[in-house]
C-alpha cells in the first residue's frame, strides 16, 4: 500500500512538471520544467528498477538523468541563449494558454479512460504509470500542434518522448539496453540537429515562428 502510494505520488509529480510546460510562455520556464520532469522520470525509472530488481533499468535511469536532465537542456540553452526575449516567448499560440491547460487536463482524463479500455495486466506499476505515460504522449503532441514557435515544438517532442520512455519502462520494463541506448542517441542527435535548424530559422527569418515555414505548398 505504501509502495503503491509512492508510485502514485511520483506519477502526480510528473504530471505537475508537465503542466508547468503547458502553462508557461517563456522558454526558460519550459526548459526548467522539462529538466524537472526528466529528473522525476529518472527517479521513477530508478523506482521501477528497485521494485523489479532489473539492473538494466538503473542504467536507463542514469542515462535519462545524464542526457535528458543535463545534456539536452544545455544544448538548447546554448542555442537559445543568443536569441532575444521576444523570439523566445510564445506570444500568441493557436490556442490560448488557459484553454490549453484545460484541454491538457481533459487529455489526462482521456488517457485514463483509454488505458482502462485496454485489457492489460494489472500490476501496480502498469496501472499507475501507463495512463500517465499516455497523457504525457498526448500532451506533448498537443503542445506541438498548438504552439507557433519552433522551440515549443521541440519541447513538445521531448515531452512526448518522455511519455514513450515511461510507457516502455512501465509496460515492458524497458526494451533491451542496446535499443534504449540507440533511442537515447537518436534523441540526442535529433535535438542537436533541431538546435542547428532553429538557429538557422532564426538567422534566416529573424523569428522562430513556424508560421514562416509555410511557403512550400501546392496551390
Amino acid at each position: 500500500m505504501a509502495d503503491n502510494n509512492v508510485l502514485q505520488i511520483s506519477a502526480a509529480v510528473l504530471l505537475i512538471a508537465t503542466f508547468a510546460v503547458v502553462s508557461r510562455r517563456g522558454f526558460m520556464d519550459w526548459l526548467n520544467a522539462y529538466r524537472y520532469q526528466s529528473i522525476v522520470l529518472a527517479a521513477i525509472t530508478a523506482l521501477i528498477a528497485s521494485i523489479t530488481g532489473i539492473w538494466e533499468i538503473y542504467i536507463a535511469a542514469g542515462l535519462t538523468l545524464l542526457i535528458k536532465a543535463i545534456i539536452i537542456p544545455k544544448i538548447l540553452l546554448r542555442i537559445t541563449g543568443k536569441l532575444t526575449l521576444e523570439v523566445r516567448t510564445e506570444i500568441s499560440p493557436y490556442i490560448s494558454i488557459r484553454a490549453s491547460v484545460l484541454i491538457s487536463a481533459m487529455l489526462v482524463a482521456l488517457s485514463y479512460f483509454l488505458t482502462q479500455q485496454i485489457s492489460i495486466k494489472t500490476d501496480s506499476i502498469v496501472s499507475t504509470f501507463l495512463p500517465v505515460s499516455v497523457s504525457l504522449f498526448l500532451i506533448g503532441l498537443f503542445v506541438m500542434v498548438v504552439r507557433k514557435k519552433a522551440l515549443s515544438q521541440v519541447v513538445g517532442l521531448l515531452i512526448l518522448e518522455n511519455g514513450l520512455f515511461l510507457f516502455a519502462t512501465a509496460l515492458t520494463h524497458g526494451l533491451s539496453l542496446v535499443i534504449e541506448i540507440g533511442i537515447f542517441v537518436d534523441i540526442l542527435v535529433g535535438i542537436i540537429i533541431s538546435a542547428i535548424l532553429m538557429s538557422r530559422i532564426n538567422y534566416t527569418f529573424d523569428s522562430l515562428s513556424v508560421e514562416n515555414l509555410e511557403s512550400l505548398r501546392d496551390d
Partner: protein
Amino acid sequence: MTLDLISVAIGIIQTLVLVVLAPLLTGIMRKTKARTQKRIGSSILQPYYDMIKLMKKDEVVSESSSWIFRASPWINFVSVVAAACFVPVMIFYSPFGLAGDLLVVIGLFGLGRFFTLLAGLDVASSFGGLGSSREMMVSALIEPALFITVFALSLTLGGTNLSTMVESATHSTVLAPSIIFAAISLFIIILAETGRLPFDNPATHLELTMMHEATILEYSGKGLALVEWSQSIKQIVLFGLFVNLFVPFGISTAESFAILGIGLMFFVAKTAFLSIFIAFIETKVAKWRLFRVPDLISMAVASSIIGVIFFYLK
C-alpha cells in the same frame, strides 16, 4: 461527538481564537513582505492598532448611498464569523459541524462577498463599480474550480462535513495524489478569494487595477474596521482550512487542556508559516493583467480535475 458542554465550549474557543488571531496573521504577512523587500515594516500588531484607531473615528457616509452600504460591513462580519464556527482549529472537530459543512462555509463567504459588491456599487463612485465588476468576474471564474476542488476533496476525505474531512485527513497515514492536486487547486483559490497577488494587490489604494480595495474605498471609521477585520477572518478561516485539511499534523485528538494547547500552538505555527510562505510569493510575483487571471484559474480547474481522476484511479 455529542453536543455536550465541553465540546460547545471548545467550539466557542475555537471561533474566538480565529476571530481574535485574524488581524495578527495580516500583521505577520505585512511584516514578512516588508522584510523581504528590505524594509523594516510596521509591528505585527499594527492591524490591531489600526482597528482600535478606526473604531474611535467618526464615519463618513456618502449621501447617495442606501442602507446596503451601512449594513454590508455587519452582514459581512456576521457571515465570516458564522463561517469561522464550522472550522476545526486545534481539535479535529467543530461541535457546530452538525449544522453545516464546507458548502455552508463557501455559501457564507459568498453572502459576505455579495454584500461587499453591492456596497461597492451602492455608493455610485466609479472606483467602487470597477472593483465590483472585476471582483465579480474573478469570483464567477473561480466558482467551477472551487466546486471541482470540493468534489475532489469530499471524494477523497469522505464527505463535505468539515469535521469528518479533517478527521479522516488526520487518520490517513498516506498522502494521496488526489489530495496533492486538490491542495494545489485550493491554494490558487485561496489566493484569489483573499485577494492576494497575482490576482489583486492587497497593499494598494492607488492603482487603477485594484479590486477588493476599490469596493471598500468609501468606507471609513467603524465600517472600515469591520470590513478589514472580516477580511482577515476570512483569510485565517481559509488558511486554517487549508492547513488542517492538507497538513493535519499536530492537531489534537483528545479533549484535554494540555493537548488542546499543543494543538493550538501547532495551528498558529502552521497558519503563520503558510502566511509567511504566501507573503514570500507575493514578493516574488507581480500582479497579473486582469485578462491573464483566467490562466491561473484554469490551472486550478485542471489540477482539481486531475485530482478527481486520481481518485478514481485507485
